[in-house]
Each structure stands twice: as structure tokens, then as C-alpha cells.
């Protein structure tokens, strides 16, 4: 499990508006890569290009290459749905399915994709996924209750459990903690540290401390001015980025002088 992602000169558009320009980077397997940068600089857009979620928005398109262990995800013969099965995603706001119980939420990915799965096997997958998301102990007695009845932090971990239940190679997280309190945030950060043994994790965050705490490598996105496309200013080991960045803009952003 877990694969390497190589992006080369990728542009992403919303209609005629170019949101990101010429992004190239390598995302290493079994590590956490963080994207930081001011709002509107294209971090989330770039994240969504990695599992072809970007094109779900009407008018959105991508130019360039994204290679998953050497295979081009944007080749014309590739089925986008299968890409998303391999590269899971956790969103900014927890979004459990309101009509489903906790159990059904975790099982959703498999049930909707593969149809019938024996109950015993499914029970095992649900339990493993919830344990993997550090949620099992809190919900094991109420698996049949609606997922929407959980607290915000629990819902987000439920969404993580749902994402890892389909056994993806890569897990993309779009500001997963921005709507959560510090304790839930801590729970999710611990979880990321645990999950990176198995998965390639990419996280977008506005919280510099979080990037410094959880990530191995960090990419700093910025845009020249409003309306211009976002670009990667610098990407390096997180420890270097936060102590000794090469670019002046990175240093200014990290130390809070702008953005």
C-alpha cells in the first residue's frame, strides 16, 4: 500500500480562470506532506486535482501530468472513478451521509462500489476502519445510531474511517481540522501520525503549527496578486522550511509578516 505521486507542470482552470499554474512536485509514500499558503492560492484546488475531484465542478479542467507510481492519472483511458477509489479524500467540513448509521457510513464506500459483502467480513472491515480512525471505543455500542448525531470531531474521524475503509493508497485531507476544537484536532493529528505508516498523506492546512507538527515535507503556495494563478513557491523538508527557508516570501508567511 501507499504510492508515490509525481506531478509535472500542472495547470488547473475554472472555466477560463487559471487557478494554479505550473505546479511540479513529488509526494513521497508513507509520509505526510503539508500544503500551506494564504487563502485562494490554489492549495485545495491542487489537492483536488490529485484524485480527479477537480473536474467534478462544471467547467473545471486540468492540464499537465499526475503520475501515481508512474501511471498517468489524466491519461484518456483512465477511469476517474477508479482513481478516486485509490486516492481517498477527507473534506474541510465533516460530511457523514445523513440517511445512514455509523456502521453504514463506514461501509458506504464498499457497499456502493462492490455491492453485497458477507456480513462477517463487513463487520471486520468496519471495526478495523473505526479502530484505525481512533473512533471505535467511542461508538462501538451505538453503531446503528445516525452518523450525524456524533460531535463534530467524531464526525470527522467517522469520515476518515469511511475514507480508509475502501483501502486507498493515498489519503488527501483538505483542512480536516479547521472546524474542530483543539482536542479533536489533537486526536486527528495523532491519527495522521499513525496512518502515515500505511498511507501517503497529503494535508492542506491554514495552521502553521499543525503543518510543523504533523508533516514531513511542506509545500508553500502563493499567488503573485489577486486574480493571478497560484504557484508553488518552495517545497522542502518541513524542518528546513520552518527554520531556514530559501525564499523570502516563505519566511515572511511563516513568521506571520503577511497572509
Amino acid at each position, binding site marked *: 500500500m501507499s504510492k508515490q505521486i509525481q506531478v509535472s507542470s500542472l495547470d488547473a482552470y475554472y472555466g477560463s480562470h487559471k487557478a494554479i499554474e505550473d505546479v511540479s512536485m513529488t509526494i513521497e509514500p508513507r509520509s505526510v506532506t503539508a500544503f500551506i499558503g494564504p487563502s485562494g492560492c490554489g492549495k485545495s484546488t491542487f489537492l483536488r486535482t490529485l*484524485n480527479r*475531484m477537480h473536474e*467534478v465542478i*462544471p467547467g473545471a479542467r486540468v492540464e499537465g501530468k499526475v503520475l501515481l507510481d508512474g501511471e498517468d492519472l489524466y491519461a484518456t483511458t483512465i477511469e476517474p*472513478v*477508479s*482513481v*478516486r*477509489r*485509490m486516492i*481517498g*479524500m477527507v*473534506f474541510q*467540513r465533516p*460530511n*457523514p*451521509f*445523513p*440517511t445512514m448509521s455509523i456502521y453504514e457510513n463506514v461501509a*458506504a*464506500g464498499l457497499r*456502493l*462500489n462492490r455491492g453485497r459483502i458477507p456480513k462477517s467480513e463487513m463487520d471486520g472491515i468496519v471495526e478495523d476502519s473505526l479502530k484505525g480512525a481512533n473512533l471505535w471505543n467511542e461508538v462501538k455500542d451505538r453503531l*446503528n*445510531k*445516525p452518523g*450525524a*448525531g456524533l460531535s463534530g470531531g467524531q464526525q470527522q474521524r467517522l*469520515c476518515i474511517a*469511511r*475514507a480508509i475503509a*475502501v483501502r486507498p493508497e493515498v489519503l488527501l485531507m483538505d483542512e480536516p481540522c479547521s472546524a474542530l476544537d483543539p482536542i479533536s484536532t489533537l486526536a486527528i493529528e495523532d491519527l495522521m501520525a499513525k496512518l502515515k505508516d500505511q498511507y501517503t498523506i497529503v494535508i492542506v492546512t491554514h495552521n502553521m503549527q499543525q503543518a510543523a507538527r504533523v508533516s514531513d515535507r511542506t509545500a508553500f503556495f502563493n499567488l503573485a496578486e489577486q486574480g493571478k494563478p497560484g504557484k508553488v513557491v518552495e517545497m522542502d523538508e518541513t524542518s528546513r522550511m520552518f527554520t531556514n527557508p530559501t525564499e523570502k516570501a516563505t519566511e515572511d508567511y511563516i513568521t506571520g509578516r503577511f497572509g
Partner: protein
Amino acid sequence: MTTIQHISTSRRIKDRVVQGLVYLAFALAVVPLVSVLWLVISNGLARFDMEFLTHSMNGIGARDANGGAYHAIIGTLEQVLLASLISVPIGLLTAIYLVEYGNGGRLSRSISFFVDVMTGVPSVVAGLFVFAFWILFLGFQFSGWAGALALAILMMPTVVRSAEEMLRLVPTDLREASYALGVPKWRTIVKVVLPTAFTGIVTGVMLAVARVAGETAPLLMTVFFTNSINNDPFNGPQMGLPLFVFDQAARPNDTAVDRAWTGALTLILIVMLLNLVARLIAWWRSPARGR
């Protein structure tokens, strides 16, 4: 510098006056509703008996006090059911197209426009259309099915509009969550979007049913008219409750007028019962249940 002020007398008075006006408007709105219900119940209860519910008007003389609306009840139920079977699938699929696939393109905009136009079509026009097309042009006979066609034309725009609104209320987040799990779009719609909007769609369909169950004009020209029981909606004239009320109320005898009132009461009860069933289904499927 501003200071903290007490509520002035003039504002108190204005508040009271507006409050009074709001209550008055509410009372005025309720008066017709309550009086209609009261009239129908008080006049209709007299003949609301087993004979009314189980017998037709076959062989009932002009001055006879007995007779019933069984033929009309059967007719209305069958016609409304058939109309729903036609209009709900078409309406729902149209709404799904508009919300999930249309993307505001030319086709979806023109569909939207024609749905709006259809909403405004008077019910008698729907009846005339089916009469001219199905009965005169294609040469079929009067039947419950022809009535159902006319009712379906009237139901469809209501179903499309309400289903469309309910589907739009489903957050994009949920669709994206499903896509991100690698679920194809059509499965996302069937397994995530529709169940989430289910309660609202059922309510919308019930409103449409309630609307057409009371239509008289389109039935006049399509199901024709009969005094006897016809269980087969595809063959021969049928009756409908609104037609029954219309027919009985026009007769000069008190016994007939009594039957008209009871027919109206039965119609209201059927619509209320359907609403109740819809609420039960909605409650049973509601995501909040068991929290």
C-alpha cells in the same frame, strides 16, 4: 454620545397595532378554512354510512334516499394511482436531469421554462387536450385511463418542481463525499442523493396527488360518467368523486344534495388519509429517527 434608551410609547403602540393586524390577518385566513371544513363535515355526516361507502348509484331512483359513491371512490383511487404511476417517474427523472445533469444548459433552461408554463395550464385545458388527442383523434373510448392521462399532465409540473427543489437542498458536500469514495455519479444519485431528499419528495408527490384528486373539469371530458361500478379503468366510462359531487349537487332533490356533501367529505378524508400515510413514510425514513 448615545445613551441606553427606554422603549418609547409610540413604538409600544406601533408594536401593539402591528401585532393586532397580524393576528387579524391570521384569523381572516383561518375563517374560510374552518367554515369549509365545518360545512362539509356537518352536512356530510348525515349520509356517511356503510351503504354510501359500499354501494353505487345503480338503479337508484330520482327521489330515493339511499345509494352511494363506491363507484366514484374506486374510480378516483384508480385514476389518481394511474396518474401518479405516469407522472411520478417522469417528473422525478426530469428533476434529476435538471439538478444533476442539466448544469444550466440550453436544454435544461427550456425544460424549466416549459414546466413553468405547464404549471399554469388550467385543468380544463388538460382535459380538452386528452379528449381531443386520445378520444377524438386516436379514437379510444372514454375511460378511467383517459382521465388518468389528463390528471398526469396536471401532476407532472408539481412533481418536477417540488422534487427539483428537494434535490437542490441536498448539500454538494454529500455528493463529493460519495465521489471521493470512488462511487460513480449514477450510484451517488440513487444511493445518496435520492434517500437524502426522500422525505421532501414524498411530501411533494402528496401535494400533487391532493391537487389532482379534486379536479373535476378534466374528468368531465375523459372518464365521461356512469352510475354503476366499473373496476376496469381501461374499459368504459368510470366515475370520480369530484364528478359525483358535481352531478349530485346539480340534482333538485335533498337526498341527492346530501349525497354530494358526503361525497365531498369522503374526498377530503381520502386526501387527508393519503397525507397521513405520506407523513408516516416520511417519519419512518427520516434520518433523525432513533437519535
